[in-house]
């Protein structure tokens, strides 16, 4: 892996980490307001909106922290990719039904409204980042494994 690839991996990882740590943290601040945003999607029964609002931000935050610390990167990427995929399905359903709602992706208590279309484009970008980080991380891991094998072979030869 070249130095450019190494730098690009850490850049992608840190962008994803900061996005999800921020997204989780602001929702944790106001779970009830976030439940209102989930309800606006009109997908889940009433009480389930609160269940999602009570749990999802913590998963986002935890996955973001793992990426930030560069530990358990690929499990965190699977969780983030899975959540983003679910968000995308929900946003497509909003667009198909013609609902005019704020996506509730970040600060549920304030800030400017973000339409489902814009949020969907942003999620596509996040999925690209997830894919890039996964591939670069795999290359990094493969290279480390090869180095370890060579060291072991060298030690055995002595």
């Amino acid at each position: 892996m070249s130095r450019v690839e190494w730098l690009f991996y850490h850049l992608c990882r840190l962008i994803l980490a900061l996005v999800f740590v921020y997204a989780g943290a602001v929702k944790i601040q106001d779970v009830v307001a976030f439940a209102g945003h989930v309800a606006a999607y009109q997908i889940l029964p009433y009480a389930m909106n609160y269940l999602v609002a009570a749990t999802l931000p913590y998963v986002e935050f935890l996955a973001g922290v793992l990426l930030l610390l560069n530990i358990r990167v690929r499990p965190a990427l699977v969780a983030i990719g899975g959540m983003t995929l679910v968000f995308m399905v929900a946003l497509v359903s909003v667009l198909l039904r013609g609902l005019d709602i704020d996506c509730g992706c970040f600060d549920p208590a304030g800030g400017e409204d973000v339409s489902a279309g814009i949020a969907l484009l942003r999620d596509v970008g996040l999925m690209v980042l997830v894919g890039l980080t996964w591939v670069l991380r795999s290359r990094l891991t493969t290279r480390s494994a090869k180095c370890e094998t060579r060291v072991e072979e060298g030690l055995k030869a002595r």
Partner: protein
Amino acid sequence: MTDNLKRILLEACVLIAFGALFGLTINNQLVLDAFAGRLIPQRPVGDMQEEPQEKVPLAYPMPILLDEVQQLMTEGGLLVDARSAELFEAAHIEGAISLPLVDLDDHMADFTRRIHKDQVIVTYCSGFGCPDSFDLGMRLIETGYSDVRVFEGGYPEWRDAGLAVAGEGQ
């Protein structure tokens, strides 16, 4: 599937389960209240001793679904339209009365004179994404109404369900 991929998926499941469990532990009362259909008390923000001027509402109006609205109407509940007077005149849910959030100060005194504080009230506006019904519900609770709920689907959901509507445009 390689063992490595299986391990990664397992660890991702553990991560999600741990995060969800942590969230449930912190917000267990909120979730229990939501599933039990109780009003959800707002957690005070900050120390009230230090900020006595900050007004903290006692409760949120309870969001309810279409079938619950119909049930409440048969039991004597009052539907209150939070939209503007023009929209109300054009079309509204049959049996609803108008209390526009934009002109609330002008109409509130008359409303409180006519409607008893124990009356079950259901507010609505222009559907999901319209905050007026929720804001009106908050104001009614602050005024002293004890049982205020919000029909978040509002006029569009009621109309689309083919239920009775009234107004000049009908």
